């Protein structure tokens, strides 16, 4: 914020002759009002006078800086008068004041202190002060300030000159769930840009689709693009621009560094290579990270099917329970209404596994990979083998993972091989050759592995279903704890994917334990900020209430800012509470068929009163641990 941005010609008066402090204040306020940033003159004057009664704002050496932060101020601004003969402003050193600046600051923000600091730094220079006092006209007065400011703050003036309102850095943020991280990264990047004086625009590829979409003109005009994403984003549009590709968490943690890298030109120029999404991943991105990204792309596309299907099926059971249907094989389809929900939900469910595999394949090999993954995933659900094409034992979730990954990478191989084909065939490659070869390959592969994958799948299901109560409780504890370790990171996602996979093989109790584990951390933090205020900073307390909503909606990410500021105390507390809740949920045999939704799906939770109890106990445990571990703050 530069002085000359705040002070304009209308708000300056040279050679004023106020008789006393009151007159000086009135003149300055009139000038402020002329500047146009004051909404309510009287309210602002009240603020100025109130400030003067606390102590004088004449800091000595002929300088006075009356100031007020007030709601009556629309935007920060300055007014100035010179009084060559001096006016008695009750200065700290008893000397008359000759140079008076009045600051108007809105109630929010810390512009005020910066302006004050800058004015003081410049006014300490005797030479500068004398030049101002002898300025011939208002424009010269402004020019003296401008020149001195440029000399004292060279870096900044340069930045301001360069900032011609053009959007210089663009960003795309995306995370698999698309609820929290996507938006946190976008906000962090835009804020970091503001601090650096660089305009940043961030497109969010969240669960509701892309928002704040980058336009073609913006992409052309920008210096570079930051892709902070844990899933694939549309890259073709960035051909020929400087692009940094990184994790979404880097967008939250090191936004400043990313922006500075773009501005320094320290980012490779991106060349779009068409279909080969896997080959164009971030330089140095580990193989494991790539796999994770592809998997998450599949999971995020599968989730809507799981959520809607799961809730429909659960509703069917709920309806039949209310209708008093017999607990036999017709349960869930006994009444016509229940049958409707059960069947439709079941259809949605049947897309789950093919969609998962299809989008993994698409993430690896772009469009050609989609067919391969989708059909491969479908073959996993039918369990087709060479011996019995109609299918025997479905290979389920595991088979789908294999279909997606193997299909995607096979497809990449096929594309490479096809590079050697005559150019004249290029046109028919994507419409005929890729699909045909891909379909053949995935069919052979799935028929070959289905018997084995099926056995493993049945084995795992049997193992989980026959697990003794104790081991199930242990499993619940582990999964619950995992949800709270990194709140949206790989551990959390691993547990979560396991939970959704368990739904696919009807282990509904596992999903219940997973979800409760993810709900505990934000709720515990919200409780702690409500009941043990002295453990948290002002800001943390203010945002605490939001965490009730986050927690109840199963958005574990809400706890991240709290965990990030004090991980050693917050994360273990959350983990223990989440583990307790997960274990209890298992012990009470609570079930959940929807993999998301928090409190909004409690109506369809099996054994819900005890589920609520488990949640309450887990949250209380976490809260107590937080209270014990975190130190009291002295300023509260």
């Amino acid at each position, binding site marked *: 914020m530069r002085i000359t941005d705040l002070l304009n010609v209308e708000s300056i008066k040279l050679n004023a002759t106020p008789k006393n402090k009151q007159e000086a204040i009135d003149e300055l306020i009139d000038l402020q009002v002329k500047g146009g940033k004051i909404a309510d003159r009287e309210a602002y004057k009240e603020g100025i006078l109130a400030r003067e009664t606390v102590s004088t704002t004449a800091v000595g050496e002929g300088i006075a800086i009356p100031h007020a932060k007030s709601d009556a101020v629309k935007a920060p601004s300055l007014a100035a008068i010179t009084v060559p003969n001096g006016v008695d402003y009750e200065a700290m050193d008893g000397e008359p004041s000759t140079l008076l600046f009045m600051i108007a600051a809105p109630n929010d923000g810390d512009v005020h*202190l910066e302006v004050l600091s800058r004015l003081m730094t410049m006014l300490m220079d005797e030479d500068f002060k004398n030049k101002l006092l002898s300025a011939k006209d208002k424009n010269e007065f402004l020019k003296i300030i401008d020149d001195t400011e440029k000399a004292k703050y060279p870096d900044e003036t340069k930045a301001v000159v360069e900032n011609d309102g053009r959007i210089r850095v663009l960003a795309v943020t995306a995370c698999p769930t698309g609820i929290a991280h996507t938006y946190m990264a976008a906000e962090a990047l835009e804020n970091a840009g503001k601090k650096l004086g660089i305009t940043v625009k961030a497109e969010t590829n969240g669960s509701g689709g892309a928002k704040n979409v980058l336009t073609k003109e913006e992409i052309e005009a920008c210096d570079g693009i930051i892709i902070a994403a844990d899933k694939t984003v549309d890259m073709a549009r960035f051909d020929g621009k400087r692009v940094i590709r990184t994790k979404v968490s880097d967008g939250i943690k090191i936004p400043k560094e990313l922006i500075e890298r773009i501005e320094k030109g320290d980012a490779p120029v991106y060349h779009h290579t068409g279909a080969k999404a896997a080959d164009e991943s971030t330089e140095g991105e580990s193989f494991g990270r790539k796999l994770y990204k592809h998997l998450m792309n599949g999971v995020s596309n599968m989730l809507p099917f799981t959520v809607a299907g799961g809730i429909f099926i659960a509703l069917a059971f709920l309806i039949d329970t209310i209708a008093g249907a017999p607990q036999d094989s017709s349960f869930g389809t006994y009444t016509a209404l229940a049958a409707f929900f059960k069947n439709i939900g079941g259809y949605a469910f049947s897309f789950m596994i093919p969609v998962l595999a299809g989008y993994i394949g698409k993430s690896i090999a772009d469009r050609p990979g989609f067919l391969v993954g989708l059909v491969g995933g479908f073959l996993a659900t039918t369990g087709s083998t060479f011996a019995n094409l109609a299918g025997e034992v479905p290979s389920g979730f595991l088979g789908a993972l294999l279909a997606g990954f193997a299909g995607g990478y096979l497809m990449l191989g096929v594309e490479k091989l096809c590079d050697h084909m005559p150019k004249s065939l290029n046109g028919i490659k994507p419409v005929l050759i890729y699909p045909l070869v891909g379909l053949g390959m995935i069919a052979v592969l799935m028929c070959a592995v289905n018997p084995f994958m099926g056995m493993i799948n049945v084995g795992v299901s049997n193992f989980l279903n026959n697990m003794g109560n104790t081991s199930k409780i242990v499993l619940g504890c582990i999964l619950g704890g995992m949800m709270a370790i990194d709140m949206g990171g790989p551990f959390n996602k691993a547990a979560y994917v396991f939970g959704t996979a368990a739904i696919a093989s009807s282990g509904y109790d596992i999903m219940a334990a997973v979800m409760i584990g993810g709900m505990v951390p934000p709720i515990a933090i919200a409780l702690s900020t409500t009941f043990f205020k002295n453990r948290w900073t002002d800001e943390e307390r203010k945002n605490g209430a939001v965490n009730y909503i986050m927690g109840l909606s199963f958005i574990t990410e809400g706890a991240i800012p709290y965990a990030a500021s004090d991980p050693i105390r917050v994360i273990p507390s959350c983990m223990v509470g989440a583990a307790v809740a997960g274990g209890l949920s298992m012990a009470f045999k609570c079930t959940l068929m929807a993999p998301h939704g928090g409190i909004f799906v409690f109506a369809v939770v099996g054994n819900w009163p005890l589920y609520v109890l488990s949640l309450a106990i887990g949250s209380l445990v976490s809260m107590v641990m937080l209270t014990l571990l975190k130190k009291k703050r002295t300023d509260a």
Partner: protein
Amino acid sequence: MVTKKVTVVNEQGVHMRPAGIIAKVVKEHPECEVTLIANGKEAKAKAPMQIMAACMKQGCEVEIVCNGADEQAVVDEIAALFESGFDE
């Protein structure tokens, strides 16, 4: 010479009023020279203008350097001002 590090705790930072309070305390001990170091800037603590020029915001680390008579007492007194948030 004694030094002490403190953190600015009050929300508004060291604006004019706190700067005036610090300068007033320092002037009560003319035999002791007090310097505040923050943001890489040095400020003579008897001059409120210099203190404000250092732009000490909330959370900012400030080193108090005292040199002269009663230096320990003076450093403690000024540190206490910072820690109390200047009663804001």
